[in-house]
Every structure is written in structure tokens, then in C-alpha cells.
């Protein structure tokens, strides 16, 4: 393992090599000065072999051995330029592709194209930790789109981070690479977790039934097969008499299923993240029930509403709770 000062030195080196501070506006067109080339282990092997070949040529005075040693060396130098050029001038843009929950994979979409004629091949994209994300082949003038995934660790706005673009094409003797940090962020919701019961009594099933029967604020939504829990009053007798099958009238509870998810209702021993996880869990459960939901947080209240937009707004609120716009802790 690298010791801490060495690691920070390496990070500074990378930052310098990236040439642009912080997230960059997109699309990023890789200029010449941002593409670095160094030989790979295979390339050093070839270099060593070329020295041996030259030594044999000198010692045995083999003219053709000289010629072929120089030919392979010349191809190797041409290969350096070819590899470098495989990366220089590549145009790349990264955009978030939907949201995700912490612990899942954050999805991004990368657009690659090459403004110059001629294809580019075998370009690898690696994430900050160096694990491969994508191998892109046949990048031509027409833009191509690929999916990138990164494990989402924490909730909040997750940037794609510093990416390494690298290629060893065509022969693998040298590696050309470049660091980029596209300005692309995706929203990571808190990880849904926790099994505390909801504290708002109204959300329990029993209360709901009472409300339905007593209040009558219901809307006929159709017929469905009877389940043992359905009260007899719901059976559609007329239809059952005709078809011989027990059907019940299904009602959509428009305003009936009201819910409140409240930060303050959680026990005091829970920390912020655990609270957010529990709230997210409840929120997702409520969403499957199309409940009209209110979210109450220390910094405000959302709802009640049961539209998908509302749920997304709630999740975003939970994701960004306590964070500023840049995703940092406030």
C-alpha cells in the first residue's frame, strides 16, 4: 500500500496532468498536451529484445539482422505516434443517466466521437480507482453512446469523478492515456433500510378499511378476484351470479390513503443517515401503495401529494438533506 504522503503526491501529479482544475465543461476535446505516452512492460521487453538483436547483428556482422532490427524499431516509433494519435482529439461527453440508490450502481452515458477522419480503436475508460468501466472500439465520426457505471457509495450528488482514458492500440508496446474530469453528476438517493414500523396510525391497514367503509371517499376502479381479506359487502353479487365466480368491487382510494413520514417521529438514538435510510424505506413502501404522502423534515415539509414527481422530489430532498448544491456537507 502506498503511504499517505506518497498517495497525495500522486494525486497532485494527476491533478497537474489533467491540466484543467476541477470538473470541466463538456464536450471535452482532448488536446495534444493532455495525452501522455509511456512504454508498457511489453514495450520494454521489445526494447530489450531489439538491443539483443542489434548486438547479434554487430557481433556476427549480419547486415540483414541490422536491417530488420532497425525496421522493427522504426515500426515501434511509428506505433508510439499511432497510439498517441488514437487518443488525441477524441471528443467525449458524459451525462447522468437516471438516479440510483446508495449501494447500487450509478449510471452515466458517455458519448464518444472523433472529429477527424479515420476510426479510433480499443480505447479503455477507467474510473478513479483504476477499475475498467468500458472498452470502446470503432469510434468514428458518428457519435456513439455507451453506458458507464460506478458504484454509488454515499447519497447526494455524485460526480463521475476523474476518468482515465487509455489505449495501447495498435501493438500494445506503449500506453497513451489522459485524465479527464467531466462535469457530470448524478443524484444518489439514500440507501433504503430500516424496519421500524410507521408511526402515523392512519397508514395502518385497519384504519384504512374503516375510512373506506365509513367515509365513502372512494372511486370505483373495477372488478377483481376475491381475496380472503375482502369484506363481504364488497362482493359484486350480480356479476358473480352471472359468471359463477366470486368477484369484488375494487376501489381506488384517492384521498383515502393519507400518510405522513416524519423525521421527528423517529427515535432520538438514530443518526442522520440511519434516519434518512428509514425515511426512504417508508417512502418507497408508500409509493407502491400510491399513498398521498407528506414528508416532514427539519427544514421543511413536502406534500401531501401522490404524483410520481412528488415522490421524486421527496427522494431528492432526502438525498440532498444537509448538503449544499455541490453535494458537500453544509
Amino acid at each position: 500500500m502506498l503511504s499517505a504522503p506518497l498517495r497525495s503526491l500522486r494525486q497532485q501529479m494527476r491533478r497537474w496532468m489533467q491540466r484543467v482544475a476541477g470538473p470541466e465543461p463538456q464536450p471535452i476535446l482532448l488536446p495534444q498536451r493532455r495525452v501522455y505516452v509511456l512504454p508498457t512492460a511489453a514495450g520494454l521487453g521489445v526494447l530489450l529484445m531489439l538491443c539483443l538483436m542489434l548486438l547479434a547483428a554487430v557481433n556476427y556482422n549480419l547486415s540483414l539482422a541490422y536491417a530488420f532490427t532497425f525496421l522493427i524499431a522504426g515500426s515501434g516509433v511509428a506505433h508510439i505516434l499511432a497510439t498517441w494519435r488514437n487518443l488525441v482529439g477524441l471528443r467525449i461527453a458524459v451525462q447522468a443517466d437516471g438516479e440510483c440508490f446508495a449501494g447500487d450502481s450509478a449510471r452515466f452515458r458517455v458519448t464518444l466521437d472523433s472529429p477527424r477522419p479515420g476510426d479510433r480503436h480499443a480505447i479503455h475508460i477507467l474510473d478513479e480507482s483504476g477499475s475498467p468501466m468500458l472498452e470502446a472500439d470503432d469510434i468514428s465520426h458518428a457519435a456513439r453512446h455507451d453506458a458507464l457505471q460506478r458504484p454509488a457509495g454515499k447519497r447526494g450528488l455524485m460526480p463521475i469523478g476523474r476518468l482515465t482514458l487509455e489505449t495501447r492500440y495498435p501493438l500494445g508496446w506503449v500506453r497513451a492515456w489522459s485524465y479527464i474530469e467531466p462535469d457530470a453528476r448524478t443524484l444518489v438517493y439514500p440507501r433504503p433500510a430500516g424496519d421500524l414500523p410507521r408511526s402515523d396510525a392512519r397508514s395502518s391497514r385497519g384504519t384504512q378499511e374503516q375510512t373506506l367503509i365509513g367515509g365513502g371517499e372512494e372511486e370505483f376502479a373495477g372488478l377483481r378476484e376475491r381475496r380472503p381479506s375482502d369484506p363481504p359487502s364488497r362482493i359484486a353479487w350480480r356479476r358473480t351470479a352471472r359468471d359463477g365466480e366470486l368477484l369484488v368491487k375494487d376501489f381506488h382510494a384517492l384521498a383515502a390513503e393519507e400518510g405522513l413520514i416524519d423525521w421527528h417521529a423517529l427515535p432520538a438514538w438514530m443518526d442522520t443517515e440511519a434516519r434518512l435510510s428509514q425515511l426512504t424505506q417508508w417512502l418507497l413502501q408508500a409509493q407502491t401503495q400510491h399513498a398521498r404522502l407528506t414528508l416532514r423534515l427539519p427544514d421543511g415539509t413536502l406534500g401531501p401529494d401522490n404524483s410520481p414527481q412528488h415522490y421524486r422530489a421527496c427522494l431528492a430532498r432526502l438525498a440532498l438533506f444537509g448538503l449544499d448544491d455541490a453535494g458537500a456537507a453544509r
Partner: protein
Amino acid sequence: MTAATPTPRIPRRLALQLCVLCAVCLWPYVLFQPWFLSTVSALLLVWRVVLAWQDRPAPPQWLTLLFGIGCAALVFYAYGIPVGRQPGLSALCLLMPLKLLETRRMRDVRATLLLAFFLVVGMFAHEQSALIAAAAALATLTSLTVAALAQRPRASVRSAVKVAAGLLGMGIPLMLVLFFLFPRIDGPLWGMPLDAYKTTGLSNRMRPGSISQLIQSGEIAFRAAFNGKVPAPSERYWRGPVLTHYDGSEWLPQTLPRENEQFADTGREWQYTVTLEPHNLRWLLALDYPVDSNVSNTRTDNSLISREPIRQRIRYSVTSRPDLQIGIDEDMATRRIAMWLPRNFDPRTLAEGRRIASEYKDDITRMQAALQFMRDRRLQYTLDPPPLGRNSVDDFLFVTGRGFCEHFSSAFVVLMRAAGVPARVVTGYQGGEINPIDGTLVVRQSDAHAWAEVWLQGRGWRRIDPTAASFPQRIDENGLQASLPPGETLSVPFVVRTDLAWLRDLRYRWEAVGNAWNQWVLGYNAQRQAELFKRLGLPDADWRTLVSLMAVAGGLWLGWLGWRYRARRPQRDALDKLWQGFCQRLARAGVPRLDWEGAQDYIRRASTHWPAQADTLQGIADHYTRMRYGPGIPDAERMQQLRQLIDRFRP
């Protein structure tokens, strides 16, 4: 930078491609090594192909190791102690298919490629013909192709070949530059194993049968390029080793120290350059009689000798004067050793010599008598003389009567010595033919010859060719073939036969190409490099000059590569053009796009200038961003929509 990830097993396709590479690299070695080594290499390779074809795993490591030990034993069996390049290369030839057998990961692929490169160069240790060069070029191309395929496994073979050929093509200028400019060093850097060179051609000793064996080879012994007049066929006596000592069965060289001879500056003069094939001995060839040469000292017997054994093709220039009289003031000791005969050999010849000595008083008439005697014996000239006994000269002159030039010259010299005249055997080549294509004189092993020199008072050493005295046609244009008895024609090498005109023409052409190849490619060494720079006007180019020239030429080459690979102006597609046109319109209206501004930022800023049209502007920006970065390729319909949006905007 990348974390070590477990590399997967190499795909089947790549394994097969490596097998092809292995076959391409190894086949030329079939020509150079014992057959069973090639067979084992081939079998190992076939096994690998079968495994790859059926996509079966590599054999276990202990089995590969066992095979490795077996292969080492085979090399040991073939060569004894495996030191030197021949056993080393054979071992590599076995190692490559073995390496393929245990190729599991990409690292092994790289190792195989390195082996392939070394085997390419190894071919030239055996032979540097154009055929082998072509084989090496093919192997190099295949290596680079496989390297490219390893980087991009899904690519088609054809595209990978194109990439590899492109890289090689760009490497060729550097190859030429370095080939001619890289400072050449003569001689080996370290001691050579004994097997490095084979001895061919004339030996520096002569026994009955040694030349008639040599003469059946059509190989080229040397070439001579004349500066000016070319001597007539009967004057083309190429002087090689001079043999003075006779032990009854074998002739050996023997010289005594003497002051350098001063030659009178008279008569005709021939200047020429000889390109001598390596023969691993020290003698050089020159026309009678060399007076000046740039490589060696003339020995006291007027032959040229090199300081080192000739282990590579060399070029040297010589000046010869055919009309010179040599050894007029030859000292007593040298004359004495030229009259010495072993005891108890060839009694009948010695008796004949004594008879001549008593009948004729002066050396010239004795010599003529001896030649007349040999003519009278009606000796037969044949490539296939019968075996001779202990008294070989007696047997030749009095029993079999059939022999070749070494028999004639040996018998004549023994006869002359018996008659009291100093005489010695000279071996070398006689004749050669002019290649009409490039005008060089080509001398083959089949032109090997032996003649005699006799020392006459007041005249020095005079050349006498007893073979020519008996068979004058031997030294004519048609030479050897005409002087042989009918029925022996076929044993003369096919290429030397003169009766097929088209064949001769073809041979001339092929050999002219071969000569150019030898002179400029294979024979390009330190000496040739110095000559080239003298001709280019840099007479004293040392390695510093060469290195600076190399740097300049290499820089030019890199410039050329950079120009080829220059970062061309980005080509704009239709969408870009539309967008750029729109940006220019905005710029003319006073709101130019800043370099770092993305489309959305730019439009947001522009909207503050035209708040009334903010919606249109935002529409344009959205449309453009969606087309540029959204999924799919911009199609005509969406392009049209964007164009309409842009038209709607009025700055």
C-alpha cells in the same frame, strides 16, 4: 496505474493466430537444422493447434516441463555441448511451440512475440539470401499483425494486417537511414564458437582428388570488377595458395623470409576489385602477379594473404602486372626448398627426371623435355580419376594415365625437381566468365585449378600449366567442358554448362542481382560504409559524423511521421456546421460564444440579450444538445427541425 486484474485465458482465435505466427517463424529453420529437430517442433505445434481448435485447456505444467527436458536432450544429442548459435537457435525453435503449449495469459503472448522477433534475426545467422529475407519480412509482418490482434481481438485479420503493414511502411525510412548510417564495427564483439564458420573452396593444401571434388560445385568463389581492360581468358590465372613442400602425398605451403621485392614499373597493368566469398582461411586471390593491394602484404611467393581468416564476404582492390618477371634474384634457400623431394617415393618418375637432367643441359630444354614426356604419355583428363597407390605420381604417369589438374601439376613439379629444376605448385582459379548484365567477372569453384611455376636462371619464376600443355582447350573460353572426354559432361554443374543459352541468360541476370545484393546489402560493412561516405564527399567521416547525420535524418523522419499524423482540423459534420453558423450569427449580433462555454451556458447568456426570443433560443439549445449528446445519430428530420428553429430567430 491500473490495478492488477485477473487476466482471462487467451481466446481460441488468438491461440490459433499465435500458431500461425510460430509456423511462419519456424519454417526456414527446416533448411538449417537436423530433420528430427524440425519434426519435433512441427509435432509440438500441431498438438497446440489441435488443442486450440478443440478449445481444450493447455497441458499441465509438469508435462510441458517434461517435454522441455526432452527437447533439451534432443538438442544435446544433435550438437553435443549446446554452446554456439546453431544449438542455441535450434533450442529456441523448440522453445517457441513449447511456450505456445503453456500460453495461458496475455503475458505469455508477449513472450511469444519476443521469441518470434529473435527467430527472425536468427534466420540470418544461417543464410542471408533474398529468399530468407522474404521469409523474415513475412514473419515480421505476422508478428506485428498478431500483436495488433492481441490488442483488438474482435478486429478482422485483414484490418490487422493493414495496420501492421502501415507501421512497417512507416518504419522503412528509418531502417534505410540507420542501415547506412549506423556506425559499423568490424569483427566480433566476443569470441566466436568454432562452429560459426565453415571452410569452403580451395584448401591451403593439395592432395590428389582435392580439386576435382571442388570443381563439381557451381558455387561462386569470388567476383572481380575490372577498372578498365579485362584480361583474355588464357591470362586469367587467379593465384591462390602457393605450395612448395611435398611430403609424398600432400602439397603444403612453405615460405622463407626475404626482403620485399622491388618491381620494375613496366608492362600492362590490371586494376580490379575482388569480392571474395568467405572460406575461413587466410589466402586471397589475385591475377598473376599482384604488385599492390589494399588489404594484405604480398608474401615472398607472390601470393596475397590476409591477416585474419576470411569469415565474411570481403572486398579488396588489387593491381596486377601480367608481364612482370618475379623472383629473378631468388635466393639460394628458396631455390633449395623448391627442389626438395621426399625419400622413397615415386622411383620411376625420379629416374625419368634424372634421364632428362643427363640428356639436357639447360633448364629451359629440361622443362620442354618434361612437358614433351607428359604429352607422349597420352594422359587422359578426367574428373573421375582412378585411385592411386602410395607412389601417386608414378601411378598417375605410368599406370592409370588418367587424372585432373592437380595430378598434372603435381607430376610435372616432381619431374622438374627430379631433373634439378626448382619448381612449385600454384593453386587458384583459372578463367571465370563475364556477366554481361553488370560486367563483373564471376569465378566459381568449378574454375579451381592447379598449375606449376618453374624457376629459370635470369628469368625468375615462370608459369607453366602442364594441364594446358596437354589440353590447350582447358583454358579457352569453353574451358573445362571442352577438355573433358565425351560422356563426362553431366558431372559438370548444371549451371556451368554452356549449351543452354536461355539458362545462361537467366543465370547471368540472377547473379547480377545477387551481386548487387551482396555488394550493397550483405557486404555493407565498415569498409563499404567508409567508401560510401568518401564517394558522398565526406572522406573522413568518423562515428561522430555518422551519429550527427543519423540524428538529422532520424529527426526528418520523425517530422515526416508527425506530418502524417498531424492533428488535422476537426472535420465538422452537418450538425456542427449548422450550429457554428448559428453561433456566427449571434457573434455578428454582438454575442460571440466564449471558448469554454457549452451550448446551454451560451444560450442562457444570449437570452439576456434577446429576452423576447428566449424561448426560441432555449429551443435551439435544447434541440442541439439533444442531437449532439442524446442517443442516436442526428437524422435529416431532426436536422430540419433545428434549421427551422434557427431560421425563426431574428437577432
